Each structure stands twice: as structure tokens, then as C-alpha cells.
């Protein structure tokens, strides 16, 4: 069964023959604002039971006792799943066949390795009964001391960071570069643990039918989730059907299937009935990933003209005690600033937390706030304007590798954003600007960058005898606008008006669209769609050009154009015919074509591929209280071809607001004794509210990139957070003269 969605609302604009580049409003917007969009937890199959997790309140030790009798005696409780009766799995949840297979806590034993780890699941007729059943378990523990904080355990150099890059890298001689420098700076910055906090909690509704599984759950990577589940249960992937039409945000935490989601499947297996399991907000602080804390030290040397002679970036971070993910923060120094000597290194500790995972520009965001702060310090040490300093150290080739950039319109980003912001009148020294009300005013900037990644994706295109088209790919819409942007690419790929195209996505029985992550979904699945469209059009052209009855006879495949539901001769556009005519004549009800999206290995070797941007921030700081407000943000970004400027601008706004959040708000406050997070709720885990971002502007800088992919698409999802966080920090320094060295910046840091 595929998901049928009514996404054919009229776009409110005039088009000129192409859907790509048009600022269409979200095609799923109407469903969302009317509440008709069905999220995972909105499903309710007949006979469904509710499953609630019981989670650990200790960070380390073992569960010594659970009062299962009490839970079972509670009215409505059907079953309690513990390590003793949990159905068998075909694979060990602690096995790690490849680096992207993260270890899961699936009640494999009584050990506790972090707070909020699942220790039992209570299944009941109602949510209330299951919740009370979980409370009645009243666990007793054998407690071991928790290892908390970056100094909480012995450090080591991890084998790989991020997706497996080397922990230590260098080019040139950093020490010599520092020695020869005229000016040097060294500074250490700390960033806290952060949690994804998507609005929609991880939720799963599961129904088993023999050995086939029907699942509603939010997923940023349907095929990967399908494969992981199939492996754990020893069933064929095609027996696992996952629907994920909408995600209420993911930010990386829904990239992999998480332990609690699999526990929902196990619970349904155990009771032989459909089950719904939804995480409570506080239960999202542990088993679904987070961003690890970092402590980063940067050393820079500059010659008499303000040119970098050396750049050294060291990051200390943390992973869990039982799995590996290391925030690659120092790698942010590989791509932005030219320097004859660059060294990046990481070390880490193992703490009693859930395993950190990809979160909102993993490595790039954390590294960026430290790097952009240090660059600001370096500019100041050289007596230079921060923009001038950045231009002086502009990288014409990728500094770490020496590769040319596939495209890089960063100079234009700097120029447009600086002009719009009014940067030119900025005084060099800090604490010189006051507004009419006496608030300290500061201006800061940061450079944004994010790699233009591509993964693997497939799509299937169909043209029908009635002249309409169908495009299918299992793409995932996390709110970024996949339903709309991919439909636009599909329309152009099929040479049809967008309203003539059925676009299907969000289901695992469709072709594998890869992962909605790494800001690479539009490029990857977009290319699959584009190629599938080209393939089916080629078949259609074959039918026409090979048939004497067609006005296109003899034109050859290369000699025809597809547009508006018709094929034309390239050399004589007065000669053409409609898709419907071609298919009807051939006696075919429909034809199909397939396409793939993947990075091109040759251009991968040759070029460094990144999106770029420049962000300027104005902050006001109360001189007596240290309370900060970001009164203005202007960003300009160059990210290749823009499929839909309205959606892209929204992505930039969102990214920039996350940047403000990084600099000023987000922090998981961890009790240093218990390891428990003290603000595991959205009242006290702060992110910006509307009043914190009164003015945000995103400029789209034109950029043609012939190398990234045929459509010229880079990613826009995560870049906004980079650059912005540093820009805000630098603006705070410029306002107050106090250099923020730990984030989020606190009132007491500025009280003076």
C-alpha cells in the first residue's frame, strides 16, 4: 500500500515553463495547518495497546530488582517486558558490523550505562495504565559512580571522528609557523552537551502480521531503518514496511532507528497485538543521541600583514562508554582559512551518557563557534577589521587538501551581507557603540560553511497514457519541504506541469531515497528523480522517433525536447506531439524509467565541494544586567542551484536561529554526581523564542556549480547554524569587550 496524499493545492505564482526555482508554498502546508497531516503517533490500528518505557534513573550500574508483580497487578496492564521475557532477536544489539550501526539498548541484560536507558516496557490497554505500571516497577539498583564531564574520565585519541575521518591531521609545520609569526593568539572555548529536541518525540506504531511488519514511525532514513529492523528480527527487508510521511523535526536524532523504537516492535511481538510507543520529552535525553560537549583550543599565528602562518585546532570531546561517535569539531579548520600550516586533533573521554550522534551540523557547528571566535580574536590582535582579516586569509583552494573548489561565491556572500547589514561603519574597538536607550551595541560576523554531500538514492518515474506522470522515491520530509522541492524537480524531469505529476514519498516500499541528513537529501534524491525523469522521457522519445506516424520520426533521442507534456524537435519546435498521443499510438497505458543519485567519484577526487555563507549579527546587551538580545541577523549564502527560494530561505532562517540558540541558549545541565540531566524539558532547556529573533534576513547569492551534480545543488539545511553562532559571540564581545569563551554565554559572564 502506498500512501495517498492530496498535495495538489494551487501554487500562488506565475511560472515560466519551469518548476525549479519557483517559490512555491509547501504542498503539504494545508494538511499541516488543518491538522490533517498524520504523524506517526496519530495512528491507531484496531486492537492497539500502549507501551511505556521504564527508564533508568542511575547513570551506571545494574538493575537489581523490579516489582513486576505490582505493575502487572495494576488494572489494564497486559504485560511487562524485561530482559527475562523479551522476545529473542536474530542479531546482538551490541554488534557493530559497520561504523553506522550504533549499539542499541534493547533489554539485552540488566546493565545500566546511562540515565534514561530503557530497563523495562509496560504494555497496557491505556496510556495511563501503562504509565502507572512503569512507575510501579520501582526499580532498585546497584549503583556505580557516574563518569560526568570532560574531566570525568581518562582521555584517549579516538580511532576516527565524525563519519570516520582521522582524529589527527596536519599539513605544514604548525610550530614553525607559530614561531615565525609576528602576532599569536591562543584561546580555549567550551561548548556544552546539547539535545536535538525535535518537537515530535520519537514514536512508533507497530503491527505484526506473521513475519511481516507494518510500522508508522518518523525516520530520516527509511531504507536504513528498514535494513536495521530486518537484521535485528531476522526477516527480509521487504517484509518491513515503514511509513513516515511527515516528521515533526529530526535534526539527526531520527537518522538511525533508536532503541526505544525497536522496543516498540518487540513489545508488539511479545503481546501479539499492535502497539504504540511514544517517548516522553525527558526520555529523549539519552537513548536517541545528542551533541557531545567540547573543549577546544585554538592557536593562530599571523604575519605583519595579518596572514595566517599557522592554525592549530584541538578539540576534546566525549562519547558513551559503549559506542563510538566523536564530534569532529576541529575539522572545521580544514576548509575556511588559508594557512601554510594547519593541524587539527581530537581527544575524548568516555562518559556514562547515551551515545552522542549527528546533530545539526555535527562538528561544523561546534567547531565553527570556536574557530570564528578565534578568528575574531586574531583579527583584533592584528588590529584589523574582522571582515578584512577574513578576506586577507581567503582560501582560493581548500586549505587542507589543496583541491580547487567546485564553486565558491563566498566573496560575494561577504559583500552582499556586509552591505545589507551596514558593516562598513563598525568601529574596530569594542564597547564603543551605545544605542539611544543606553544599551551596549555590538556587531560581529562569522563565515558559514558546510560540505556539499551526496549519498545514494533511487527513483522511479512513470508516464501515463492520459498525459500525467508519477514520480516515486522514499524521500523523507522533516519539515524542510521535501514534498514540494522534489515535486518541482520531478515536474521538470518529466517535462510536465507540477499539477500533472503525482509525487509519492515517505514510505519504505518506494525506491530507496537515501538519508535526509548531512544536508544532502535534495541533491541526492533530487538527482535520482531528475535521472528517472530523463530515463522515462528517453523511452518516450524512442517510441516517437522510431515511429513513422510521429512528427518526431527520425529526430533521434538527442533531437527532442520535453516540455509541458509534449515532445518537440529540437531543430524545429513547430513539430511535436503530446505524451498522450505517443503512448496511445503505441498502445501503452504507461511506461516507466529508473534513476539514481550518487556522488560522482571522479569529481569527488578533483574538487572540494562546499556551500558557503557570511553572517552578520547585531546584539544589544544591558550594561548592568548582562542580558543579551540579538536584534538583527543578516546572512548571505551561496549553495549552488536553489530549487525553491521560499523553502531555502526558511532553511537559512532556521539554521541561523539555531546558531543564536548555540551561542545563547542551549545547554543540557548535568548533575555532576548523578549524571542526570536537570533540565530535560522544553521549559528549561532553552531555545530561542520569537522575541529572541526579531529580525532575521537571508540573502540568496547566485552560484553555478557544474561539478557537484547535474542539477548544481548543494545543501542548505545545516549551513545556517555555522557562522551565525560565532557571529553572535563576536557581536557580544564587540558590545561588551568581554570575550565569550564558554557557551551558552551567561549573564554572570558579562556582569563585570
Amino acid at each position, binding site marked *: 500500500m502506498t500512501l495517498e496524499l492530496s498535495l495538489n493545492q494551487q501554487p500562488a505564482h506565475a511560472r515560466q515553463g519551469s518548476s525549479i526555482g519557483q517559490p512555491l508554498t509547501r504542498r503539504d502546508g494545508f494538511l499541516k495547518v488543518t491538522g490533517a497531516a498524520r504523524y506517526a503517533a496519530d495512528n491507531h490500528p484496531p486492537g492497539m495497546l500502549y507501551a511505556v518505557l521504564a527508564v533508568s534513573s542511575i547513570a551506571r550500574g545494574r538493575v537489581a530488582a523490579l516489582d513486576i508483580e505490582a505493575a502487572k497487578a495494576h488494572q489494564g496492564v497486559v504485560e511487562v517486558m524485561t530482559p527475562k521475557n523479551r522476545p529473542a532477536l536474530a542479531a546482538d544489539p551490541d554488534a557493530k558490523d559497520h561504523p553506522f550501526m550504533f549499539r542499541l539498548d534493547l533489554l539485552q541484560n540488566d546493565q545500566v550505562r546511562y540515565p534514561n536507558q530503557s530497563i523495562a516496557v509496560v504494555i497496557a490497554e491505556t496510556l495511563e495504565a501503562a504509565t*502507572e505500571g512503569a512507575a510501579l516497577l520501582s526499580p532498585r539498583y546497584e549503583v556505580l559512580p557516574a563518569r560526568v564531564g570532560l574531566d570525568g574520565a581518562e582521555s584517549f585519541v579516538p580511532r576516527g571522528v565524525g563519519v570516520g575521518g582521522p582524529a589527527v591531521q596536519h599539513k605544514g609545520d604548525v610550530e614553525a609557523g607559530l614561531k615565525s609569526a609576528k602576532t599569536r593568539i591562543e584561546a580555549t572555548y567550551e561548548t556544552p552537551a546539547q539535545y536535538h529536541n525535535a518537537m515530535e518525540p520519537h514514536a512508533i506504531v507497530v503491527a505484526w502480521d506473521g513475519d511481516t511488519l507494518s510500522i508508522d514511525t518518523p525516520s530520516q532514513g527509511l531504507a536504513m531503518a528498514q535494513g536495521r529492523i530486518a537484521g535485528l528480527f531476522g526477516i527480509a527487508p521487504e517484509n518491513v514496511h515503514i511509513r513516515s510521511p511527515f516528521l515533526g523535526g529530526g535534526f539527526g536524532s531520527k537518522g538511525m532507528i533508536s532503541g526505544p523504537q525497536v522496543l516498540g516492535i518487540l513489545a508488539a511481538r511479545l503481546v501479539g497485538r499492535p502497539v504504540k510507543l511514544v517517548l516522553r520529552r525527558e526520555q529523549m535525553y539519552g537513548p536517541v543521541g545528542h551533541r557531545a560537549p567540547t573543549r577546544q583550543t585554538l592557536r593562530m599565528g599571523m604575519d605583519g600583514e595579518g596572514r595566517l602562518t599557522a592554525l592549530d585546532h584541538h578539540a576534546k570531546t566525549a562519547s558513551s562508554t559503549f559506542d563510538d561517535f566523536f564530534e569532529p569539531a576541529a575539522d572545521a579548520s580544514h576548509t575556511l582559512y588559508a594557512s601554510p600550516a594547519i593541524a587539527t586533533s581530537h581527544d575524548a573521554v568516555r562518559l556514562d551518557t547515551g551515545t552522542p550522534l549527528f546533530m545539526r551540523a555535527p562538528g561544523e557547528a561546534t567547531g565553527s563557534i570556536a574557530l570564528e571566535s578565534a578568528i575574531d580574536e586574531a583579527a583584533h590582535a592584528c588590529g584589523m577589521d574582522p571582515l578584512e582579516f577574513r578576506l586577507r586569509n581567503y582560501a582560493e583552494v581548500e586549505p587542507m587538501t589543496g583541491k580547487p573548489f567546485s564553486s565558491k561565491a563566498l566573496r560575494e556572500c561577504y559583500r552582499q551581507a556586509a552591505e545589507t547589514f551596514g558593516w562598513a561603519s563598525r568601529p574596530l574597538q569594542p564597547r564603543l557603540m551605545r544605542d539611544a536607550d543606553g544599551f551596549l551595541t555590538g556587531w560581529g560576523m562569522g563565515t558559514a560553511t558546510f560540505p556539499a554531500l551526496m549519498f545514494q538514492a533511487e527513483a522511479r518515474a512513470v508516464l501515463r497514457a492520459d498525459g500525467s506522470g508519477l514520480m516515486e522515491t522514499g524521500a523523507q520530509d522533516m519539515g524542510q519541504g521535501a514534498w514540494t522541492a522534489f515535486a518541482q524537480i520531478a515536474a521538470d524531469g518529466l517535462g510536465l506541469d507540477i499539477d500533472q505529476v503525482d509525487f509519492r514519498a515517505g514510505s519504505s516500499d518506494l525506491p530507496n531515497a537515501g538519508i535526509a541528513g548531512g544536508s544532502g537529501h535534495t541533491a541526492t534524491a533530487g538527482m535520482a528523480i531528475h535521472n528517472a525523469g530523463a530515463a522515462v522521457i528517453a523511452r518516450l522519445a524512442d517510441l516517437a522517433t522510431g515511429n513513422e506516424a510521429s512528427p518526431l520520426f527520425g529526430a533521434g533521442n538527442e533531437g527532442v525536447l520535453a516540455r509541458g507534456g509534449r515532445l518537440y524537435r529540437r531543430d524545429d519546435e513547430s513539430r511535436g506531439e503530446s505524451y498522450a498521443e505517443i503512448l496511445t499510438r503505441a498502445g501503452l497505458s504507461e511506461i516507466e524509467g529508473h534513476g539514481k543519485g550518487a556522488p560522482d567519484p571522479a569529481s569527488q577526487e578533483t574538487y572540494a565541494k562546499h556551500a558557503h555563507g557570511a553572517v552578520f549579527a547585531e546584539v544589544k546587551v544591558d550594561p548592568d544586567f548582562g542580558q543579551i*538580545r540579538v*536584534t538583527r541577523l543578516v546572512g548571505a549564502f551561496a549553495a549552488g542551484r536553489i530549487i525553491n527560494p521560499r523553502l531555502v530561505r526558511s532553511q537559512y532562517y532556521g539554521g541561523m536561529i539555531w546558531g543564536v540558540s548555540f551561542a545563547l541558549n542551549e545547554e543540557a545541565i548535568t548533575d555532576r554526581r548523578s549524571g542526570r540531566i536537570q*533540565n530535560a524539558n522544553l521549559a528549561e532547556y*532553552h531555545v530561542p523564542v520569537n522575541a529572541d529573533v526579531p529580525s532575521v534576513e537571508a540573502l540568496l547569492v547566485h552560484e553555478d556549480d557544474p561539478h557537484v551534480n547535474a542539477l548544481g545543488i548543494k545543501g542548505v539545511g545545516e549551513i545556517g547554524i555555522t557562522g551565525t553562532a560565532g557571529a553572535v559571540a563576536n557581536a557580544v564581545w564587540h558590545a561588551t569587550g568581554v570575550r565569550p569563551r564558554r557557551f551558552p554565554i551567561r549573564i554572570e559572564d558579562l556582569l563585570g
Partner: protein
Amino acid sequence: MRDFDYIRPATIPDAIAAAAEPGSAYLAGGTNLLDLMKGGITSPERIVDISRLPELNRIERLDDGGLRIGALVRNADLAYDPAFAKSYPAVAEALLSGASAQLRNAATVGGNLLQRTRCSYFYDTASACNRREPGAGCDALEGENRLHAVLGWSDACIATHPSDFCVPLVALDAVVEIEGKKGRRHVTLEEFHRLPGETPQRENALEPGDLIVAVRLPAEAASFSANARYLKVRERTSYAFAVVSAAAALVVDGGKIRAARLALGGVAAKPWRARTAEAVLLGANANEVTFASAAEAALADASPSGDNAFKIELARRIVVRALMSAQAGTPERLPALPASPFSNIPGARHDA
């Protein structure tokens, strides 16, 4: 959530009779109580839903010039009542600086007074907390306590009372009208909340079954309307509890302070009336020097209970600014960012 009885009494006496049974709790807006129940911090056996008792929903002018605010009047309704906001602008400003629009639409006058502390160890049932479980100990003492109390705390408890609304109310001599088994009584708001001492679990003057029926403001409270402000420093521009806040109200005549009211929020287990500071202000010249001495007096007994020494200096500065703003005069219109230090800068377009 534990099973509980749900009772919706039709009259105040019925409500009091129902709630006098042990293990009962009144339900008003539910914005605090339901969170506490879901988190297992409190587990009442019987919920007495007072939210539909009509006689608690009125704002009445009294013959003596005072005002009587029914316990069920919603925070938003009170703040947006034009006559109320005109007479008690600092109270309206405090109300609108609290929580979010959605919460203010649900939260009631009585519930706001009785909201529990935001101390994270109080909410974390795996932690030791004397307030939640008398005698258990206090994990905040050596824990994450940068936002805890600097006045009136004890080794048994260092938590603060989070209400904004209560701060100008206590400054203006508000009185809590309580109905219980033994009839009606009046307790000043200043005496209503208790400091922790050895018994932090005893948070206020209520006895089992006691119902707050109204909050009264005496006639004199309106005499400050031209010079009354509330100022709240917080960690984001809106939708955050106070780090420290202050309500200041003055009557100034010929440069001399004829009457002064000052209270602090976020510093103690109760809204903190700064009477010694008021004594410094009374009769003095209304200027920054006087305000600075008042701030010194207000914080004279303050001491950090943890990593929160900064709050003492911050509180001094907030007192001075709140007094300066009060002296400058109540603004014609309520600011778009109520009680914010940024209430008058450009770009302050949104009230989240």
C-alpha cells in the same frame, strides 16, 4: 499517572468539604499541578476541580476603594482588564512577563500563588529533596544551583518561589482571602509564603482543605499607579523564569519620596518584600544615590547558597533600575516586551 477520584463540586462549601479529606488537591488551570502529577512529584488521590465555580471568577471593586480578585480569574484576563492595568500597572506587567500566552490563558490567580518551585531536584524524583520528601536531604546544596536562593534560605532548602505576579502583589500589601473548615480568614501575602527553615515542605499558610477564594489589594495600592514598574532579568527575551526580578512603586512629591514599595523575585522561597530598603527610601530624595543605598539595604542579608553569588550583585542593580524606572513614571502603554530590560528598544515587536 496514578488513578485518582475526580470531583467537581458545585459550591465553595462542597469544594472545601471534599478537599479536606487527606490526599486531595484542588485543580484550577492545571498548568503546574498536572505537570507535577505526570512527573510523579505529587500523587493526589482526589482531584477537586474548582475551575467552574462561578463566584471565584470575578474582579470586584470594594467599597473601601480596594479590589478583590477572584482566585479563578485567569492571569491573561486580569492583565488585560483595562481598569486593573491602569490602577496596578506593575502587576499587569509582571503577569504578562510570566510564562507564555497559552499558559497565561489557563493559569489562575490562586494557582499562580501556589505554584511550586522550579528547583530541578524537586522535579527529579530520584534526587533527595526535603521539600518533596521531608528529611530526605537537599541535593541542590552541592548541585547545579546557580539559580537558587540568596535570601532567606536554610541548609534544609535553597529553592526560590518562581512567581512574577506575587512580586508586585507583595509590594502592594496584597491580602489572601482563604476559606476553610473554620470559615473565612485573611492573611497578608507577605505572611502567606514561608521561608524554608527546618520545614521547607510547609510552603504557605494553608491548612488542609483551605481554598484561596480571592486576592485583595487595599485602596492604597492604586495610589502608586503613576510610578510603578516590574523588571525581570531572564535568560531569553521571553518565556523564561526570572533570574532575578523586582517590583518598585513610588509616590514622589517635590523630589522627595513620600511612599515606597519594593519587592524582589527569584531570590528566596517567597516573594521578598524589602522593608529595610523601603525605610531607606521613605522621605529621601528620589535619585540614584538613594536608590543605590536602598539596593544595599535590600541585599544586606544576602548570601550565596551555591554558584549564585552573581545574583546578589545582579539583584542590587535590578533594584536600582526598577526604582529609576518607577521614578521615571509608568509608561502610557504597556510595553511590547513587558518587564524586559529591552522593553523599549526598536525591534521589540514580538510578545512571544
